[in-house]
């Protein structure tokens, strides 16, 4: 069970969170059909570091951006979406 440091709530167990998607599969509302195909079906699925969207569903309810390693499950960064890059 991973431990995710929510910027609002502090370190909490993975069970409180929902994985939503990899950041590269966020599809803008005004995207073209071709972009929809790329983002929804032709994704990277990296073995290694990945930017992901998780939601602290059983906590503050906020979507968070995680920089997470898909093999080791190390989490290098947890940030709010509106945080400066």
């Amino acid at each position: 069970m991973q431990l995710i440091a929510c910027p609002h709530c502090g370190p909490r167990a993975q069970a409180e969170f929902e994985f939503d998607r990899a950041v590269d599969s966020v599809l803008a509302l005004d995207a073209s059909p071709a972009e929809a195909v790329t983002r929804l079906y032709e994704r990277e699925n990296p073995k290694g570091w990945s930017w992901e969207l998780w939601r602290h569903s059983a906590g503050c309810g906020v979507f968070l951006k995680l920089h997470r390693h898909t093999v080791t499950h190390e989490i290098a960064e947890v940030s709010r979406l509106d945080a400066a890059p």
Partner: protein
Amino acid sequence: MTGSRTGQGGIIDRSRTIRFTFDGKLYHGHPGDTLASALLAEGLVLFGRSFKYHRPRGVMSAGVEEPNALVGVGIGGRFEPNTRATDLFIYEGLVAESQNRWPSLSFDLGAVIGLFGRFVPAGFYYKAFLGKPGLWTFYEHFIRRAAGLGRPPVKPDPDHYEHRAAFCDVLVVGAGPAGLSAALSASAAGERVMLVEQDIAVGGGLHRESEDIEGLPGQAWIAQALTTLTGRGVSMLTRTTAIGYWDHDMVTLAQKLVEPGQVPEDGQVAQRLWRVRAKRVVLATGAIERPLPFANNDRPGVMLAQAVRTYVNRFGVVPGARAVVATCNDDAYRTAFALADAGCEVVAILDSRSESPSEIVKAAAARFNVQFDAQVLEARGGPGGLTGLAARLGGQPLSLSCDLLAVSGGVSPVAHLHMQAGGTLNWNETTGTFAPDVPRQNQVTVGAAAGGAEGNSSALGLTAPTGVDARHSFVDFQNDVTLADIDLAWQEGYRSVEHVKRYTTLGMATDQGKTSNIVGLARLAALEGRPVPQVGLTTFRPPYTPVTLGLLAGHATGKHLAVVRRPPLYDLHLEQQPLWLPSGHWMRPRAYPRGDETLHSAAMREARTVRQAVGWVDVSTLGKFEIAGPDAAAFLERVCATTVARLAQGRGRYTFMLREDGIVMDDGTVWRIGPERYLLTSSTGGADRMAHHLAYVRQVLAPELKVAIANVQEHWAGIAVAGPKAKTLLARMVPDPGIPRHMSLARSKIAGVPVLILAASYSGERAFEIYAAGTDIIPVWQALVAQGADLGGSAYGLEALEILRIEKGHVVVGGEIDGRATPHDLRLHRMLNPAAPFIGAPALQRPALQSSAGRLRMVGLESDSPIPEGSMLVSTMPGTPQGHVTGAGQRVLQKGHVALGFLRDGDERLGEQLMAWSPTRNASARVTIVDPVFYDPEGRRYRD
């Protein structure tokens, strides 16, 4: 009868006696005894039969790694198979039985296979039965009887199990000398320490040895450490096994509060599952000795050398009278001294090395018959015990008689948790061991688990003597895998260790190959002519030792398996004793049968009531969301695929939402309840998904919109009132201006309760949804019952609702909205917002979703006979399915049956005749393809 109890020594309480039975016979032991030590003390040699060949088996080890002495323990629902006799501490009234024997342990018919038949080689089942189903059918009965590990319990487990969470600075796994030392130093530094030990006592290997530690006898050192740790408030759990090392330093512990099969005291839990999150984990899990490969190395009387020493020094049990020690290292020499000091004759020490310079070997040479370059080729004996052995001594054959053969093939560090945590292993060519190398998490391995037993060239023990009978040299004792099986797998082309494992079942028994895996790997490496590390390792999977399923379930069994969500009207429904239908976690009435009505007859009566008079149904569980703010309409135009922006205040409309891939996700209604305030409904089952979706759109896709979302699903309880007399009924409770027109809303009071009334119809009749805050809805329902009775009204359930909506051609989430259908498939495309600012619009423009050719389109089906639900649509029976039925029912007022379904290119096939065929129910109906709205297609009945 070879084993016996010594006069003194050990950490058993000789002043007290415990009685227990094994295979129905009464035995005695002392507190502190395992089942194995007590039975060995009573002279028992034969403990069970092996899995595949039913070979006689005794005790091999003194710990959790035991592959041979497996027993069934306990009575009724507490029966637990495959319990290791070496890891079961006896208690008064313990009932144990041997396994894999029939009709009895001493005379086992299955063993006849082993005596007269050919052995069953690796891959036997694949080769013998693949492609020959008839053969398997014939032999299955006999094979099932002969095979299997123990038998499962036949009654429910009556015990309670609980889960607990804990946090600490340092978790120390294993309370041998290394673990105790680690706990001592961490607690001295002021850290919050948890120390867990799978044994009933802390001390680990110290109980086995007679040497002093730090100038103190072992037991005195343990006592001192315990006093210090207790004084520092260290949390110590015995009989607690760390079964898994998970992400981010979370370790799960299985704590036994009673022994397997033992009845807990009233109200006490049997076992506890801990989830411990530690800042640092110290793995002091020790090492496990390996057997030596030679013929009949599985015979009762062949035991691991450290285990023999444990029985002598810890339990005061000498497992034989004439012993031979066979080794490839110095450590086993201690066993010779322990045995001799306890009065056992040590016939010889057979050392496969050519020499050893160490002190203990010199001392042994002065007292015992020590032979170098000596390898055991074969053990001799049977169910009654060992009679002797054949060895090779510097090329010359040698025969010895003995009733105990203590073997040591070196030790393997217990690296399971280190590996589960993602660590790597390092191969030591000299000791022949894999030891923890690089950690991945905040873990450190200490003591014997870290490897590095110096001066030992135990790698020798991994090589079988030349000319040994490989067919009877066991590697995996529990699964009856021999050296010959590994040879065969290799000859047949298996190279990957994972493939060899599955083909031979090496390491796949409940002991997970704790004693066998490295021996098997070494054999494979030798065949390959490659170093062991290049052959690779199999995966270390949790749990480290088997756990009972009840422990993993905890309290989540029976009615506690899942939460039950009860709508506010639950108690009122309960009085009517309805038939219930779980809807997600919600409990909803399916129908309210009267007298001897069935579900079907009750639902048909309720549906007729709605069509002819008035009915009311609890719709409290619908998903409901309030969307407010200056950009609320703009937000909804992104979520909903229909137009929302032009909705006038006080009005509502049907809507549906798409997923990003253009597929319909859910549907409901949207209401403008204020200038910048909307109410959006969704399906009951889709409410949680919708809540997440709305949060995603607001936070991720459109954070610039000024909008707030409140999930009001549980705030607003609701009742739908439907039927030609619905307006009449409402007029009795609400003053006339308070009754809204179709797709309009009104606020009013019913029975003194403030309500929101939405005029919308799902059944096809004039209908109103009345919403009130939570349990405030109760008097509203009571008022409907009181005022509606003389109108011929009654409550109706989900079954009637289903019949009504099918007849009306309304789609439902989970029925027609099945995660595959586009708006066009569901005939909803004319309602799509042409400006297309909504989620799913980009993907929906893809040609595959735009073209109709070959797509399953929603159709209506009519028939004279009942249409089987879930049936497929075919031209002839049997035939290739061209579609399927999603929902079916009887017509409410007319004769005949109707259904909704999907048919390939269905919108172009109206009038066609097909069969709805369900081979699983052996039912069919001739159907005509029609428009899906069967009832009031003009929509006259629900308008004013």
